[in-house]
């Protein structure tokens, strides 16, 4: 199957005062339609930075990002905004919903931003809410929802603009492992049934058996992990010391 998203030799350098800090180095990877990929790695290894570049929030210092053959790495801010509005679905660590909107309005907001508020999208919002088991919550406000429900709304919102690719940065960090797993299972189901590509950054290695492939990041470099090691030794992987305590946001 053709790649839905392709990174070629991505590097990113931040300026820390006068000294350049290389956060990403020569990263290449690709995601196919219907694939659910995980990225793991210690804190500060550049996972969020990588996700931001794929998600058109940041531009890389060098290298190319292609979403569905479209080379977005050379785009101007105006065009990047369009890419985010049309091609990307974001799920953040905390659900990041708008407090004064009902569940349904959270989804309609996405249509509103893209100036595509119509009957068709209203029906779509209702369907998505239903898919994620939130039908009875359609008119609830954010403060009335549990953590897991919030994250499910965030997933529904991410699918609302019919994106090519879903990006999730630690979507389960604020949930207990049982809720977390449920949320990831729902995300997986949506990705498979709608044939999207998805990348999930996670610290919780117990979720990894749900993923098709795993990448591990360390010091700005990335390599693919064999699925075998996950299935055989979920605990040891965790204990292997992949988590220096520096900046840990768990």
């Amino acid at each position, binding site marked *: 199957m053709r790649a839905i998203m392709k990174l070629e030799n991505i590097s990113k350098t931040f300026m820390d005062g006068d000294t350049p800090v290389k956060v990403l180095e020569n990263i290449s990877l690709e995601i196919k339609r219907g694939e659910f990929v995980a990225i793991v790695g210690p804190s500060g290894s550049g996972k*969020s930075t990588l*996700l*931001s570049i794929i*998600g058109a*929030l*940041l531009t890389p210092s060098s290298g190319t990002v292609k979403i569905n053959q479209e080379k977005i790495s050379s785009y101007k801010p*105006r065009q990047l*905004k*369009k890419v*985010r*509005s*049309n091609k990307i679905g*974001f799920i*953040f*660590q*905390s659900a*990041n*919903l*708008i*407090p*004064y*909107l009902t569940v349904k*309005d959270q989804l*309609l*907001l*996405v249509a*509103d*931003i*893209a100036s595509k*508020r119509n009957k068709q999208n209203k029906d779509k919002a209702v369907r998505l809410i239903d898919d994620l088991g939130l039908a009875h919550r359609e008119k609830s*406000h954010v403060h009335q929802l549990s953590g897991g429900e919030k994250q499910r709304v965030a997933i529904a*919102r991410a699918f609302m*603009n019919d994106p090519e690719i879903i990006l999730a*940065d*630690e979507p389960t960090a*604020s949930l207990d492992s049982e809720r977390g797993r449920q949320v990831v299972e729902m995300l997986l189901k949506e990705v498979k049934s709608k044939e999207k590509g998805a990348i999930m950054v996670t610290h919780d290695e117990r979720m990894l058996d749900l993923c098709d492939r795993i990448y591990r990041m360390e010091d700005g470099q990335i390599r693919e992990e064999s699925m075998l090691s996950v299935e055989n030794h979920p605990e040891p992987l965790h204990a292997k010391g992949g988590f220096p305590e520096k900046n840990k*946001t768990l």
Partner: protein
Amino acid sequence: MFLAFKELGYSKLKYILVTIILTAILFLLFFVNGLASGLSNADSSSLKNLPADYVVMNEEAEGNITKSQITEAEKQMVYEKVNHDQATPLTITMSTVKQDSRSTDIVYFALNTDRLTMPEVIEGKSVRAISGKEVIVDESIKDQGYSLNDTLKDENLDTEFKIAGFFENQTYSHLPVVYTSLTHWHENELTDQEVSQAVLYDGEKAGFDELEALTIDETVSAMPGYSETQGSLLMMITFLFIISAFVSTVFFYVITIQKTNQFGILKAIGADTKFIAKGMIIQVVLITALSLGLSLLGITGMTKVIPAEMPFEISISLIAFTGALFLALNLTGSLLSVYRAAKVDALEAIGRVE
């Protein structure tokens, strides 16, 4: 748009409170404004509506028309320089008239009523048509029980006048002004033939020895106490404007700061600053318009209740001007919030806990 309305609906209390504050400030603003123009009118409307381009007084009077004295010789001097047909001496006399033991203070403006373009009447004869004892009086005297064809008994002057008509906006120092024929006054020796307070004329500005030609505006502001009163009221009005602009700017700015994280999310899911700014401006306009409407309602209600003697006057143009200025100030203030929202980076949405 939809976002702006949803937020107003959700945080009702917050927005209702700021609407109430702005309404109260605006109410005060309209009130002080109405009072300023009411006072100014009651003080000086007769001077504002003097039927001439220039008012000649002597220099010592320093613009205070009641203190001015123009002698017959000086009058002739003025007449040499200006068109005789377009000029008249003006004699001002304060006095008291009586009806059924009730006294009313009035101010006589005795002048040649067949010169110049006299003020319009709203009832009775025109000013040009009066003769002898006939006078035209400011309509505010009606509140004292006088009506057309009534007699004004003046015990100080030991004479009587007949009300031949009424005009409006002719008060001096809150007192009704009476236009009367100077010829009649001279014939009956009601005033000194030799002096009058001023000479009014239409035409170009001219210079005279020891005399001064003032425009109508200059005459009004030289009235004793006039500039002081209007000045302090204007200061209050200015401060109220500043306070209102400040309240709404600070309010929206604080709310904007509270929402930076939200703006980050909005930008991350594809919204631009224009989308966010549009919502904010809709909110500011809505709240400003609502406060304006409510305060106008309040002011209208109040004008129905206040006593008729209270000098209070509010005009459509004043309301329109105040409203437009208020809206403009609030919108300018909201630019601060827009600027702040523009600086929010979509990246703030990532990896940040609320």
